């Protein structure tokens, strides 16, 4: 098992009387740069602290025009982390490829981060969320074909000796010859996050990349998603490696179950009720009809609909409790899901600095070593009978 600390870098100071969406049209007059100054530095400290505590990697991601996550440029964050850490993997999960024009920007910036960090980059590629297609006025009905073309360009830039030429439907690059190139050969490990669209799973399986399950749904939805991903790999003629899958999950550890819930619940619900609204827009043509139909089953389990703590616990929307409880729940769920990477969201919503650090420490000291023992790297994680049940 590999352990990552994932940060969304949320905006924690939406005024109590604001009840609109946190995305696309959330008024940017609500953004206080002084808060921005504080939280960017604090959040970076939390990621850097994860290295000190023994995590294998840290993760940042990209979203635009929203209060949910303040990282329109995760590459800026990753380049800071490349300098301020020395051992951990730095996973950028990911760059929304169609939003970079030309997409050689991604090949360049990722290569810079890989060079600065000495080969510690994990390169994530995403189509971009539904809201981004509004924020950028990009045509969502062409999102996927653009994504595939961008991917081909980045891989070509990294793996071919230039100059080469790319003449595609959306991009015409007559001199494809990016400087610098990544340290890692043939290229950094590639992660693709997904919410369950069939095309993404098939794409990841075909290229032997790793598939990261995006959270905020009932654990049954994840179970089905990872099962479908394994089947997609089987159709490509191989067994998925656990390292090809990652489960992103909010985690909070305190001294006791009771204390953990008391300290965590309101911050979790700030996240769910204030920062998620608007993330779930599905612009026209963004999802194919076959994937829409397949994903429709899970839609109503979306975390935005959560009302009670019991529902949070029952659906494993967050793993919260004493170190024993957190350990047991993670073991059980990891056996069900079969993922070899655990991506913990330790800070969420308005969770302040002090409890975030304490939870990270408790997790690293009392949970992570036991999980490493339970799930030795390279071993199978999935327990078949659990998956069938």
């Amino acid at each position, binding site marked *: 098992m590999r352990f990552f600390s994932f940060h969304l870098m949320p905006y924690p100071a939406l005024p109590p009387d604001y009840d609109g969406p946190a995305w696309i049209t959330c008024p940017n007059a609500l953004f206080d740069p002084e808060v921005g100054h504080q939280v960017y530095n604090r959040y970076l400290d939390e990621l850097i602290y994860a290295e000190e505590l023994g995590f294998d990697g840290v993760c940042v991601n990209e979203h635009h025009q929203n209060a949910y996550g303040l990282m329109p440029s995760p590459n800026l964050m990753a380049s800071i982390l490349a300098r301020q850490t020395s051992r951990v993997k730095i996973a950028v999960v990911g760059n929304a490829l169609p939003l970079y024009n030309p997409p050689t920007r991604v090949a360049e910036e990722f290569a810079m981060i890989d060079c600065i960090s000495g080969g510690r980059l994990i390169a994530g590629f995403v189509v971009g969320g539904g809201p981004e297609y509004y924020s950028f006025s990009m045509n969502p009905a062409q999102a996927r074909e653009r994504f595939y073309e961008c991917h081909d360009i980045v891989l070509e830039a990294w793996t071919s000796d230039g100059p080469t030429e790319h003449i595609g439907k959306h991009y015409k690059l007559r001199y494809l010859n990016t400087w610098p190139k990544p340290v890692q050969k043939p290229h950094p490990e590639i992660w693709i996050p997904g919410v369950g669209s069939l095309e993404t799973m098939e794409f990841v399986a075909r290229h032997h990349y790793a598939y990261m399950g995006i959270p905020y749904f009932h654990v049954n939805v994840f179970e089905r998603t990872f099962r479908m991903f394994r089947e997609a790999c089987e159709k490509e003629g191989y067994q998925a490696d656990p390292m090809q899958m990652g489960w992103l999950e909010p985690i909070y550890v305190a001294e006791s179950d009771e204390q953990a819930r008391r300290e965590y619940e309101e911050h979790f619900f700030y996240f769910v009720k204030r920062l998620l609204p608007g993330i779930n*827009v599905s612009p*026209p043509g963004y999802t194919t009809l076959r994937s829409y139909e397949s994903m429709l089953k899970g839609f109503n389990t979306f975390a935005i609909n959560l009302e009670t703590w019991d529902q949070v616990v029952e659906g494993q929307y967050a793993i919260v409790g004493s170190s024993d409880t957190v350990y047991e729940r993670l073991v059980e769920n990891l056996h069900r899901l079969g993922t070899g990477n655990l991506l913990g969201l330790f800070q969420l919503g308005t969770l302040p600095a002090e409890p975030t650090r304490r939870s990270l420490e408790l997790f690293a000291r009392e949970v992570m070593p036991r999980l490493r023992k339970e799930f030795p790297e390279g071993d199978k994680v999935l327990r078949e009978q659990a998956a069938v049940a």
Partner: protein
Amino acid sequence: MSPKPLSDERISSAVGKIQVWRGGQGEALVYLHSAAGEAAATPLLEELADSFDVIAPMFPGFGESEGMDEIDDIEDAAFHLLDVWDQLGLAAPAVFGTSLGGWMAAELATRNPEKVGSLVLVNPAGLYIEGAPVGEIFGRPPNELARDLFADESHPFVVAADQMSEMANLKVEPPFELMRPMLQSLAATAKVAWNPYLHNPKLVRRLHRVSAPTLVVHGAQDRLIPRAHAETYAARIPGARLVDVPGAGHLMSLEKPAELAGLVREHVTARG
């Protein structure tokens, strides 16, 4: 004589099989539907089939028409219409387009004026006019959008939209088969109309090319496309007339079929 339903036919085109609703006899009248994809069993077309050979091709991605992947912008749409014309052996039919279909009709009539015998544009999209923005059709709750499309809130379309929104509020999953046509129509519309939003910046400078006698119809209660758009079409197309229909909203084809059929019949038969 009671109206007869149109027949459901298929033609081939460069982008795939195209569904065409057709009925009646007389002069050819091509109907280009809106982003709502209306054509089948619309009383408007059944009534017009009394006087015309009514031909309503479904645009790629709408209804049973294939080929959405081959359409990327409004230029592709105009060229696709040329294929449809050839397949159907149409020389210079009367063309009647509404909203998105009105825009497509205008694109064809500016590029190939000889292919359009007479032209009716009903609440046409296609232009950008500063200070007169077109309402949002993408990503809105169905109940809200429906109120921008109809003047009459008791229209069955509005009632159905209210039911869909109600399901969403109750967190009931609507059956996929109910959602499919809407998802499909919006995706097909997005291909040509996402950005620039429902317009072609070049179109307004080309409108003088239209040679067909043209009628522009504006629904007086159209809450989606302001009257300035109809005014601009009427002012830029040589000899065009502008008519306002009181009590009509944006989707006039569904809301005021009898009035619209009367206007179309009068305009097309008065030609020459």
